[in-house]
């Protein structure tokens, strides 16, 4: 107990006001400490989420934003140039632009023959294990890989094409198609081939079912089948 009161008294005596040099120095040190703590707590922008993010994440975010900006700037430049051309008034250019869009839409709608580089796929299925969903998967995969025009059997695949199982094969919008199924697709051959051949992709699933899958690319091919143009 005595030691306790002693130490308390000594604490009080130490805390008492004795202005001499070392005490002043200690005071200055505490001043610095208080200043530092306040600065650290009141530092502006401590509530920004970026401050605590890791450097790698920040770099990733920056890269993404940069790529996005580049894309948008390219798009903006294209549209600005187009606007200028159209405003410059030459009717020929407006017609050319309209024609370009018409062609693009015709390709998508399937009302015009298309030629260009592409891939030809043959799925031989003598035992009848391939059903409509597999062919649909192939079509979706080709579309994802940027195919502009697709033909299955003798049918052009367009926005309202449907597939169903059929005795002896499948039915594409009502037209029976039997093995071997031939699929033509116009687009970038490299991209489409690698999309088809990814592990667990269309080629894999066809082969695991016991059918044969063959794909070859062509630098020039034509899809001449069209769907009738209907006004709607």
């Amino acid at each position, binding site marked *: 107990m005595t030691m306790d009161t002693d130490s308390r008294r000594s604490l009080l005596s130490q805390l008492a006001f004795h202005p001499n040099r070392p005490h002043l120095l200690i*005071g200055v040190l*505490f001043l610095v400490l*208080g200043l530092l703590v306040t600065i650290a707590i009141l530092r502006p922008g401590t509530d920004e989420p970026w401050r605590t993010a890791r450097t790698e994440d920040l770099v990733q975010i920056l890269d993404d934003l940069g790529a996005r900006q580049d894309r948008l700037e390219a798009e903006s430049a294209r549209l600005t140039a187009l606007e200028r051309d159209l405003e410059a008034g030459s009717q020929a250019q407006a017609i050319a632009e309209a024609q370009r869009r018409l062609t693009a839409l015709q390709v998508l709608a399937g009302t015009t023959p298309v030629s260009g580089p592409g891939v030809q796929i043959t799925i031989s299925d003598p035992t009848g294990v391939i059903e409509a969903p597999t062919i649909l998967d192939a079509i979706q995969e080709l579309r994802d890989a940027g195919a502009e025009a697709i033909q299955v059997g003798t049918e052009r695949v367009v926005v309202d094409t449907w597939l169903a199982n059929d005795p002896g094969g499948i039915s594409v919008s009502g037209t029976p198609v039997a093995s071997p199924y031939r699929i033509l697709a116009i687009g970038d051959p490299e991209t489409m081939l690698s999309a088809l051949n990814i592990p667990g992709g269309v080629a894999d699933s066809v082969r695991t079912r016991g059918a044969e899958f063959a794909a070859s690319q062509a630098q020039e091919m034509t899809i001449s089948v069209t769907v009738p143009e209907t006004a709607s």
Partner: protein
Amino acid sequence: MIAIIGLLVGIALGVLWSPVVPIWLEPYLPIAIVAALDAVFGGFRALMEKRFDDRIFVVSFLSNVVIAAFLVFLGDQLGVGAQMSTGVVVVLAMRIFANAAAIRRILFRA
């Protein structure tokens, strides 16, 4: 007494003046604070044990801050800045806890 006055003046200065920390100093600020706190707790413990020495306190305060900042700087240069900061903070925090325990034992005998 003068220490408390200094602390209060420092806090007041920080609030009123709110200086902008240069960007190169920013990683060292928290480390410097923890190192200084370590020195303060050590000094307080020495005060309790009646072996407080002004000179030792001043020297340990300054050297703590400088060494901690240097370690973090070295870590930054070696590419392990974040881990080094964590290590320094952990060690200093452990010392602070040890000192706080000693102070508590003397003050409250518990």
